[in-house]
């Protein structure tokens, strides 16, 4: 292949560029928690963590850790000026009551109709876990997914229909992968692709048809962490 997929941090950086000024944004476990460190300087975005924080900042510097100040993934974080701390009912009132502008979530699979699968696989023996995924998927105004475009074996994770159990039906608005930015509006619409990757190549890695947006462009990378 003649293109380079985004690294996880490059993907997090790309998502951060799209955070609207003044937005309240929940960061889910995994890739999304990395987004907090890439907020552009020209705007204020308030990051929410389901365990009861608004105003989440970057990880603490050595010597400033508080083991009880953690994010949804139980990693230590900091609070920015203007932050607040609250209990679970209030935190999930924000989530379930439609007060969160955007939920950034990881996913195993996303379907072309917006179905989201990110809590259980088809491995029967393993105990299922759901956390706040279903609350966020059902309650946030917009759901944006951050994920690798394919499984490790190259099989697609963007599908016509999810094969794993659903987190919520028809909720995903946008997908950021390591290869493309894709909106969901009656199917997958490609807005950006990494340099050197054709729509045909991307389609080969995707389990449902792709449409090219009229203004489809190259997926930008950060100047500082670009290879």
């Amino acid at each position, binding site marked *: 292949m003649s293109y380079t997929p985004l690294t996880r941090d490059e993907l997090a950086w790309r998502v951060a560029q799209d955070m609207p000024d003044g937005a309240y944004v929940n960061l889910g476990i995994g890739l999304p928690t990395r987004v907090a460190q890439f907020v552009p300087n020209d705007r204020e975005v308030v990051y929410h963590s389901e365990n009861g924080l608004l105003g989440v900042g970057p990880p603490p510097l050595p010597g400033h850790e508080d083991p009880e100040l953690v994010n949804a993934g139980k990693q230590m974080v900091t609070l920015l000026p203007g932050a607040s701390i609250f209990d*679970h009912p209030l935190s999930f009132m924000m989530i379930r009551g439609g007060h969160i502008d955007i939920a950034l979530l990881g996913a195993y699979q996303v379907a072309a109709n917006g179905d989201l699968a990110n809590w259980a696989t088809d491995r029967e023996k393993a105990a299922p876990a759901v956390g706040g995924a279903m609350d966020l998927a059902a309650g946030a105004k917009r759901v944006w997914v951050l994920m690798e475009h394919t499984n490790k074996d190259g099989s697609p994770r963007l599908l016509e229909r999810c094969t794993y159990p659903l987190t919520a039906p028809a909720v995903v608005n946008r997908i950021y992968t390591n290869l493309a930015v894709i909106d969901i509006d009656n199917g997958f619409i490609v807005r950006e692709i990494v340099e050197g990757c054709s729509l045909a190549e991307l389609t080969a890695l995707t389990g449902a048809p792709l449409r090219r947006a009229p203004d489809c462009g190259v997926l930008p990378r950060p100047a500082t962490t670009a290879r």
Partner: protein
Amino acid sequence: MNQGLRAEKRPCTMIDKRVASLSDAVAGIADGSTICLGGFGDSGSPLALIDALIQQGARDLIVVSNNAGSGRGSGIAALLETGRVTKIVCSFPRSEGSVVFEELYAAGKIELELVPQGTLSERMRAGAAGLAGFYTPTGAGTLLAKGKEEREFEGRTYVLERPITADVALIAAHHADRWGNLVYHSAARNFGPVMAPCAKLTVVQVAQIVELGSIDPEVVVTPGIFVDRVVQVAR
């Protein structure tokens, strides 16, 4: 003078929820109890009270907790290891290193009721508030709605969720006064404020007990009405 002295010596009219030891804090917890355990992972977990509960020996317990413990030998994992928990009501049992739970689950030795995190919190809130249940869109159209009433309101599907009430809540706060007014530390607040009012007996471990009146009423997070016992433990 004499009367004043007598007034001061009327301990029966004083509200004092402080207990002297961890064994006093968990005394009387019965077999078969439903027990809420506070914490989000280790943040806010009442580790000393869980240890005391293991020493106390109550069995056939139903545990309500966001997570199912991690590692071995301490906290919820240690409690599960004793084999005294028959069922756990939980949103995220598969945390990193939750080996004890996973072994018990694979062996069919523990029942799991998996609940979305916000629904778990709201079911306790409903229990604390005396509600019979609530309809939520969370989980509608998924496996976790199986067996529950689904109902449409204004074109959207909702799931009927029933309340959770508990016999006991074990939670951690940062400091308390003798009335049981609580202030938490940072993100360790998480489930404490909702578990305290949903249990018949609420026991709190705190790092510090302060003089009555020294907590600004504006900053009390959990009013003492929801608290029965407070025990001070070293952090």
